[in-house]
């Protein structure tokens, strides 16, 4: 009997394989119906809530920022407390460009992305070394250093007063930024969507899979020939570039860059949004950012102190009881429902 594979066991194993293959997203996967429906939401919001377009573009941009952290945290498993640094670099790059006479927005985005990517690439050498605690401290330290630098270099950045006088030319020479936020919303939506599609493609590529593999077992990946440090550096750089684009969008749509774009509270809030929505699933960042910003807009209107308390409370509850955030909870519900249906 020994050595002869049992027929039913083989069947089980291959069934498991098929299941596993079905669960791992294939590199060329398409948008599902649910995803298409999701992306229709902002379009509906644009027409349904014309008074909230400014808030809406904030949601979209912050959502993109959260997606950029998701690449680093949710997919690569690098805990970063200084991700706002790259957001801020992007914002200042785009803002300074516009202040000093280059008003074209799309090239501004690209410059911001490149600036943030270069900074991210340089930082990644420091971040990839060391364990979780070291990474946490190094990202925190880099973020604080940058804040301090922007604060002291007031002659360039405007210091705590922020950088004002950011004037942006009409997009493609056609669409002027208006006070109601119509152009800003559409511009943000288009850019966020395009970047999201690229990020989604990266995540579902073999490269994305190997990054996830590093998250699951960093010590085992070298055994199958994956260059761990190089992969992590690459994904960190990509995350920084995307954060830079988000920062540039904020600078261009609000026509102002505040020093708080670099601050620690922003990095912390971003972590909260991502965890609230559910890390490691791209859409978690978007959902979390939407809920966070809408709740903030509503609750801090009542009392800013209460807002801070509830956000802390929420965070504690999510960590203790609601692992996986909102999308994780929905997944669990759907799974239970599917099991019952069977």
């Amino acid at each position, binding site marked *: 009997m020994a050595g002869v594979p049992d027929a039913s066991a083989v069947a089980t194993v291959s069934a498991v394989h098929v299941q596993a293959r079905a669960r791992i997203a294939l590199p060329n996967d398409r948008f599902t119906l649910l995803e298409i429906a999701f992306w229709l939401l902002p379009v509906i919001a644009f027409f349904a809530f014309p008074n909230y377009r400014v808030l809406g573009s904030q949601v979209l941009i912050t959502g993109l920022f959260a997606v950029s952290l998701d690449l680093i945290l949710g997919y690569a498993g690098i*805990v970063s407390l200084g991700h706002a640094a790259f957001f801020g670099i992007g914002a200042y790059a785009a803002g300074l460009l516009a202040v000093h006479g280059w008003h074209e927005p799309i090239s501004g985005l690209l410059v911001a992305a490149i600036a943030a990517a270069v900074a991210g690439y340089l930082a990644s050498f420091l971040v990839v*070394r060391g364990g979780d*605690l070291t990474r*946490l*401290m190094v990202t925190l*330290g880099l973020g604080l250093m940058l804040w301090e630098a922007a*604060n002291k270099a007031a002659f360039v950045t405007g210091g705590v007063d922020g950088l004002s006088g950011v004037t942006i030319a009409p997009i493609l020479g056609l669409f002027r930024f208006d006070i109601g936020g119509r152009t800003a919303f559409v511009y943000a939506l288009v850019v966020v969507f395009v970047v999201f599609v690229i990020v989604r493609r990266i995540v579902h590529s073999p490269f994305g899979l190997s990054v996830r593999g590093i998250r699951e077992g960093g010590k085992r990946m070298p055994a199958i020939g994956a260059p761990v440090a190089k992969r992590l550096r690459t994904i960190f750089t990509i995350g920084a570039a995307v954060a830079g684009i988000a920062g540039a969008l904020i600078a261009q749509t609000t026509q102002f860059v505040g020093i708080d774009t670099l601050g620690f509270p922003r990095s912390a809030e971003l972590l909260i949004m991502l965890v609230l929505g559910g890390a490691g699933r791209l859409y978690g960042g978007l959902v979390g950012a939407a809920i966070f910003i809408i709740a903030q807009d509503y609750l801090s209107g009542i009392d800013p102190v209460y807002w801070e*308390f509830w956000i802390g409370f929420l*965070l504690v509850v999510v960590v*203790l009881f609601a692992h996986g955030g909102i999308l994780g909870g929905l997944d669990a519900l759907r799974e239970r429902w599917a099991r019952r249906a069977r």
Partner: protein
Amino acid sequence: MIGNFIGVLFDGLAYGSLLFIIAVGLSVTLGLMNFVNLAHGAFAMVGGYVCVMLMTRAGVPFLATLPVAFVAAAVVGLVLERALYQRLYKSSPLDQVLFSIGIVFMSIAIATYWFGASQQPVSLPSYLRGQVHVLGLDLGVYRLFLIVVVALLTLALQYLLDRTRFGSQVRASVDNATAAAGLGINVNRVFALTFALGSGLAGLGGGLGIDVLGLDPTFPLKYMVYFLLVVSVGGSGTIKGPLIAALILGVFDVAGKYYLPQVGGFVIYALMVVLLLVFPAGLYGRRA
């Protein structure tokens, strides 16, 4: 010039010893439970507010408020440890970080709600104010007092860890919690007591530090980096490491702000990144 330098050095040492007394508990939490507790400053804030409220509302003298600050922070620490923290010892660092950021935000909101957002004033008793003339130098009495208190506390802690039964239980649990539990040490109880002790020391430091560090609801966030820095540079789970790291940090911070005001806090952050990269396990860290 030289006198100036010694004055800066002295202020730096006083500042550093304050950082040490607050952060030493964090070092234990990190070394013992591997818990990344960003909310450690909140316990110091508890101590600070206990001191201020006792002084201003109940008229208790400053020195008498300090033990109360210690006890209050220790009790808060113990309750939180049993109710919440202990559930997360086995969680990922990310969960611990998020959880403790949540605690920080809540503590800031609660402090603002109860005590208002402004800086709390402290009036030190007259015998702790002013300057003394030692060897041709003018030294602040309060800073001298701080250094002496911290030196005594450090000796007491060292004694507690090295010479008592509880201390050897703590060291055994740090080295290998599983084996320690196997030898009949109640590791959970050791964890809880050490957490309470660390929180208490932080509360004491918060009370002592009102005059130097200030006290307002954003305290836990403002000094979070400093405490983390002391621990991660000093290496966790020892007393000597954080002490030396805190003193270096204190001196560099004060000197940086004194001699290079245009650079300010930059010195500290740069120092931190460099030290972390050169000594990934801390100055006195045990090699993992």
